[in-house]
């Protein structure tokens, strides 16, 4: 009964979404006040309907209704409750429903929080979201129905994929999808403004917070996925340039570019057409990222969702959404009037440079990801493109981004001089240079450059705040007052830039990791990376739906003999799925990770893979800092989102803050 209700709710949502698309856009076109006023209600209605169907699916999972195929295939009676719930989106059908849920949530947030928007624009934005939503709900209904029944129901389900039975991955899809789908709002604004034929500073002001929120989610989602692959797959790496990983990196790159170009639209009314195009591209990449991966065109370690039969529908849908929006762009972009003149050396100039380089990186990653499937399709030749390709193309393009990142924020708008900006940053540059030279002495050229740039990013972000507060030049109390009056967006930007510096430092540290694979018997000791690793014992450990085998290791400092850590790497075999997973043991002190993965047992001993990974935690810590910077920036803008009336009120109180 409940699954049928869920299925009905999807159908209902699909119809509401169609109404939402047609009535809102047509109403806004005709200027019909009643239809325009109906748009938010329809968006909310669609969200409620999709939400109900999602709850119905979760309910079927929780009560283990194995007559629902989705539950029978990806859950079992023994699965812990948390994974009965999260297993809902750990498979193709469920994850598409989650995707639709978040898309309808985007429409609902515009309906609720978009009260300050001009009502016609809001109706158009909601209409565009409804159109996209309608397409994907139709796909859910026809090709990927999560409520398909099987009869007779099996006595027990096949269980969740053991690799996905992990808290890190349980929450990875919702956060990642919130990022992917969040860009739909920027996309809807772009398409709505193309229909309307008008983009102004207000457009930048509305689009930026939504983009920023999506960007924060995407940053967290990518970091969570990378962290999961680090500790769960047991391969000792954090990023494999896998097509699915690249698919999430692409919208992140163009989304970051959009975040910055929207600033230029907001402050200077320049780069308008470009920003609209970037919004369309970013959401197109998000769409392709989610669905192309699932169409079976790209194969990867995320093989859980490959199903070529759905490919045609998805490709057609992608063609309509992406092709349609680009066509609209080609037809309507000339209507938008460019404005705002600036010199090449200026804040705008730096942001343009940022955009060009980020898009160049995105293009390179896109080519590297798409080239192998196309070569296979056209020439029948199987090739692959891996880390060496991406290292030799992405790093040279990322270096100038990192160099310019410190400089950009201290340049003034419209026209700036390089020399004064450099003088303000002299100490950051000097420190980065010194660290780079010291690192070059011991570690080689590339790590030295990496550490130098990482420190440069952190210190130049700090230098910008010092400069804003006139710290050390005016009395401390005056500086304090100035810093307190700085908008949170300034702090957010500085923290975000510093966070990238921390992440880069972590990646460079990780490139210096050492590892060793050894067959060890209990009582034996292995020396690696300045530590002595001794295998103490091996024993069994039963779990709820798996059998475990655990090793106990004692790690001592090689020089002082001090006990550093006791580690318990293990293996789990899941009888139901006939699968074994590796349970990696990681001990961190913030500066380096000790990482042990357990292999096969052989002749009384066990194969251990030992890693010492310098600065590894910084990779994800930096991503968290970036996201915190984003949220901080967002909290500043909260009151200003499309609220012209309130802005007038604050303006009357007098400008207290120097222009950014």
């Amino acid at each position, binding site marked *: 009964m409940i699954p049928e209700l869920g299925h009905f709710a999807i159908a209902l949502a699909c119809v509401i979404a169609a109404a939402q698309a047609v009535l809102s856009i047509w109403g806004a076109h005709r200027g019909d006040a009643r239809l325009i006023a109906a748009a938010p209600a329809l968006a909310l209605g669609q969200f409620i309907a999709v939400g109900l169907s999602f709850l119905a699916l979760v309910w079927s999972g929780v009560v283990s209704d194995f007559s629902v195929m989705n539950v029978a295939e990806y859950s079992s009676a023994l699965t812990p409750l948390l994974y009965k719930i999260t297993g809902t989106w750990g498979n193709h059908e469920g994850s598409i429903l989650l995707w639709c849920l978040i898309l309808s949530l985007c429409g609902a947030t515009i309906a609720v929080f978009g009260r300050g928007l001009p009502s016609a624009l809001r109706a158009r934005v909601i209409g565009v979201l409804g159109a996209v939503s309608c397409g994907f709900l139709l796909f859910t209904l026809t090709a990927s129905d999560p409520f398909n029944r099987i009869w007779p129901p099996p006595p027990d389900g096949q269980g969740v*994929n053991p*690799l996905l039975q992990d808290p890190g991955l349980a929450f990875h899809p919702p956060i990642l999808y919130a990022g992917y789908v969040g860009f739909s709002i920027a996309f809807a604004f772009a398409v709505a403004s193309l229909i309307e034929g008008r983009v102004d500073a207000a457009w930048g002001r509305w689009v930026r917070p939504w983009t920023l929120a999506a960007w924060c989610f995407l940053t967290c989602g990518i970091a969570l996925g990378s962290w999961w692959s680090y500790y769960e*797959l047991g*391969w000792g790496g954090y990023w494999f340039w896998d097509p699915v990983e690249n698919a999430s990196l692409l919208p992140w790159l163009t989304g970051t570019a959009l975040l910055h170009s929207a600033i230029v639209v907001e402050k200077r009314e320049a780069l308008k057409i470009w920003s609209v195009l970037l919004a369309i591209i970013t959401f197109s990449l998000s769409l392709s990222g989610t669905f192309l991966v699932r169409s079976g065109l790209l*194969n990867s*370690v995320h*093989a*859980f969702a490959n199903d070529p039969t759905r490919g045609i529908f998805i490709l057609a849908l992608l063609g309509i959404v992406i092709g349609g929006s680009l066509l609209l762009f080609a037809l309507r972009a000339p209507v938008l009037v460019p404005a705002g*003149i*600036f*010199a*090449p050396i200026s804040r705008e*100039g730096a942001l*343009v*440079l940022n955009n*060009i*380089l980020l*898009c*160049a*990186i995105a*293009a*390179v990653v896109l*080519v*590297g990801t798409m*080239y192998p499937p196309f070569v*296979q399709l056209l020439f029948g*030749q*199987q*090739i*692959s*493109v*891996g880390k*060496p*390709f991406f290292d*030799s*193309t992405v790093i*040279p*393009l990322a270096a100038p981004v990192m160099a310019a990142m410190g400089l950009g924020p201290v340049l003034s708008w419209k*026209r700036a001089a390089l020399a004064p900006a450099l003088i303000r940053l002299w100490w950051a540059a000097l420190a980065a240079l010194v660290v780079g030279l010291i690192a070059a002495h011991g570690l080689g050229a590339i790590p030295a450059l990496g550490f130098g740039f990482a420190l440069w990013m952190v210190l130049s972000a700090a230098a910008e705040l010092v400069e804003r507060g006139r710290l050390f030049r005016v009395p401390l109390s005056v500086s304090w007052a100035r810093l307190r009056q700085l908008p949170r967006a300034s702090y957010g930007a500085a923290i975000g830039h510093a966070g990238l510096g921390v992440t880069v430092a972590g990646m460079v540290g990780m490139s210096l990791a050492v590892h*060793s*694979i*050894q*067959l060890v018997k209990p009582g034996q000791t*292995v020396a690696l990376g300045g530590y002595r690793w001794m295998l103490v014992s091996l024993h069994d450990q039963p779990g709820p739906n798996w059998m475990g085998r655990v090793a106990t290791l004692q790690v001592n400092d090689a020089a002082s003999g001090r006990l550093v850590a006791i580690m318990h790497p293990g*293996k789990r075999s899941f009888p139901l*799925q*006939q*699968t*074994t*997973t*590796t349970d990696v043991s990681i001990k961190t002190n913030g500066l380096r990770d000790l990482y042990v*993965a357990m*292999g*096969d047992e*052989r002749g009384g001993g066990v*194969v251990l*893979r030992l890693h010492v990974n310098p600065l590894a935690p910084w990779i994800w810590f930096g991503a968290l800092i970036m996201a915190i910077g984003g949220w901080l920036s967002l909290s500043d803008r909260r009151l200003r989102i499309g609220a012209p009336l309130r802005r007038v009120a604050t303006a009357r109180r007098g400008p207290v803050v120097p222009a950014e």
Partner: protein
Amino acid sequence: MTRKRRRLWVLVACGLGFGSATALTLSAFTSDIVFFMLPGDVLTKHPAPGRAFRLGGMVAEGTLKQTMVDGAPGAVFGVTDGHGHVVPAEYQGVLPDLFREGQGVVAMGAMTPDGDFRATEVLAKHSADYMPPEVEAALKKNHMWNPATGAPPPAAAWNGTGAKLAGG
């Protein structure tokens, strides 16, 4: 700064950015692309020693031997395409949990001067009945297996020259 000058600057910057991106991509394509080969391709094309490629096929029955060099575990195994071509491979490290004789395998590595394949990475996949898509496509091309007709043929069917390799 006129509008025209600005546009020129932006165009120059775009050209530089995307020009260097193209140059980097092309240069990386000449050196960093990894080809996929079946044992038969390896025996006819003789890839240069040291040039990285991916070797795919089935692990020949009776060829998998665990080895031990200076306390570091490794393995030797034969990779076959079912047409009697077998490439001997060696790997220093821990094989993935699902690595078995008679199953599909994809390994990254290069040939050594004496004609062995030295794997630097043996790709792991998530489930027991998983067939690497490259291997699946290659098998289909060689008319060894059509996935539409069911599970891959039993491991013994691949065994053409496995025993010889294990003996030698």
